[in-house]
């Protein structure tokens, strides 16, 4: 079970133009945890995600997945372990049909076609869109695209799911459905999001970033109760934790 760990040790990243995107970030996410990384625009959330999948290499510090440090040699194995779902599904659905797209990962693992078919069907059924398998991506709705992108990653059978802004651009119903789906997964999950109500629903633990540094790392309830911290990090309480504008009562 140890390979479900995600760990950052003193992780720093400075872009070529001198922008410090991450400054000495350390955390340890353990097996089966569901963790939100939140922060204002430009706080370093996306940069951090790129590190978890080895798309960026640290200026200093290291990332460990399981007990393995992320290096050039361990990269292929780590990318099989960590499934990354991008914010814009159009970036991820590049094959001509949904089926081919979900099959892309398993085929890269050189699995026999029968096994590829099995995995594709399981992944598409898991996210509830097996019926659109023959369609080209541009004929899907926003919610279906998101599900297809997630299926593409699930078909790789990852232990850890890393998702950038999973609910962005979805209508309320599709968003609610997706939150339900993500809540059913038993993987170790890391989300970035501005959808703080989703964070409240899905993630018992939250890490707050400000200008590349970890400002808070703790239980989501505690983080959202700290108004001074939230306003310093250009965040606010989720709507569910704010008083109702009509009757003045709180949901939680």
């Amino acid at each position, binding site marked *: 079970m140890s390979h479900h760990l995600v760990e950052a040790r003193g992780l720093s990243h400075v872009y070529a133009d001198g922008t410090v995107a991450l400054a000495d970030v350390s955390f340890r996410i353990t097996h089966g945890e569901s963790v939100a990384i939140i922060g204002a625009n430009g706080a370093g959330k996306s940069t951090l995600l790129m590190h978890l*999948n080895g798309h960026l290499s640290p200026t200093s510090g290291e990332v460990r997945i399981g007990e393995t440090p992320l290096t050039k040699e361990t990269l292929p194995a780590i*990318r099989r372990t960590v499934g990354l779902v991008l914010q814009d599904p*159009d970036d991820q659905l*590049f094959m001509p049909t949904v089926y081919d797209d979900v099959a892309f990962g398993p085929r890269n*693992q050189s699995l026999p076609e029968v096994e590829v078919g099995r995995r594709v069907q399981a992944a598409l059924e898991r996210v509830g869109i097996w019926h659109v398998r023959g369609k080209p991506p541009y004929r899907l709705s926003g919610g279906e695209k998101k599900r297809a992108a997630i299926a593409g990653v699930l078909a790789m059978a990852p232990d850890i799911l890393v998702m950038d802004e999973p609910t962005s651009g979805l209508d309320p119903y599709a968003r609610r459905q997706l939150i339900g789906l993500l809540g059913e997964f038993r993987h170790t999950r890391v989300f970035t999001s501005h959808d703080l109500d989703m964070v409240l629903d899905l993630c018992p633990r939250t890490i707050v970033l400000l200008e590349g540094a970890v400002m808070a790392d703790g239980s989501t309830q505690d983080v959202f109760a700290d108004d001074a911290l939230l306003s310093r990090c250009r965040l606010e309480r989720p709507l569910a934790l704010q008083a109702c504008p009509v009757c003045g009562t709180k949901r939680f």
Partner: protein
Amino acid sequence: MTRVAGLLDFRRLDLLATGDSSLHRLDPRAKVIVTLVFIICAMSFDRYAVAPLIPFFVFPIAVIATARLPIAFLSRKVALVLPVALLIALPNPWFDREVLLQLAGLEFSGGWISLLSIMLRSLLAAAAAIALVAVTGFPAICAALGRMGMPRPLAVQLLFLYRYMTVLGEEAVRMTVAREQRGGGPLSIRLYGALVGRLLLRTWDRAERIYLAMCARGFTGDFGSGQPSRLGRPDIAYVAGWCGLFLLLRTQDVTQWLGAAVLGALR
């Protein structure tokens, strides 16, 4: 809105390929080969050829009829090549003034005849290509070309071109709408440059994100495909039949035979 309609048109062409007819079911390679041989045969006549080109129209017409494709829609797509062909052929009547044909007291120079020939060939090539896409689908054509020895990077490029044409088109439409929204008058060259540059940068960013998504799913430079289809008897018959006809039309003066036969029957 015309631009948005253009995008939808492209999608419609793509949808046609999901149809089910005897032609749709053929191996894409067979259809690609027949189309290539067709284009080579039709293009390789000498520049004054007009009459020998006419019988070649039987191929696109047969494909459209067999696959029950919407003829008005496809004709509009085919007609798009006419202005381009005209632009290429237009100087001919000026440069080539030697009289080659006299018909009902009118004299036709070689230039006018070669102009007509170029237009006919363009129509033939465009009709064959569009009919091929409509019964096969672009991805299957790319896969077929790849299996027939086209370098893989080129096949992958074509696939991506196909996949992101709509995404890029939508981005271009959004930019145009944003410009017109704020009262953008006629498009100056400078503004045009800025817009195209912007689009290029966006494309670049997107390309990087796509590559990232590919690497995240273990891309190693090799595009796996599903179970490859095998050339069956109908495929071989299709290739042999059409290619035989094209070679016959190319090497024998079939129009003259037909003309003689018709005249003989009339007498």
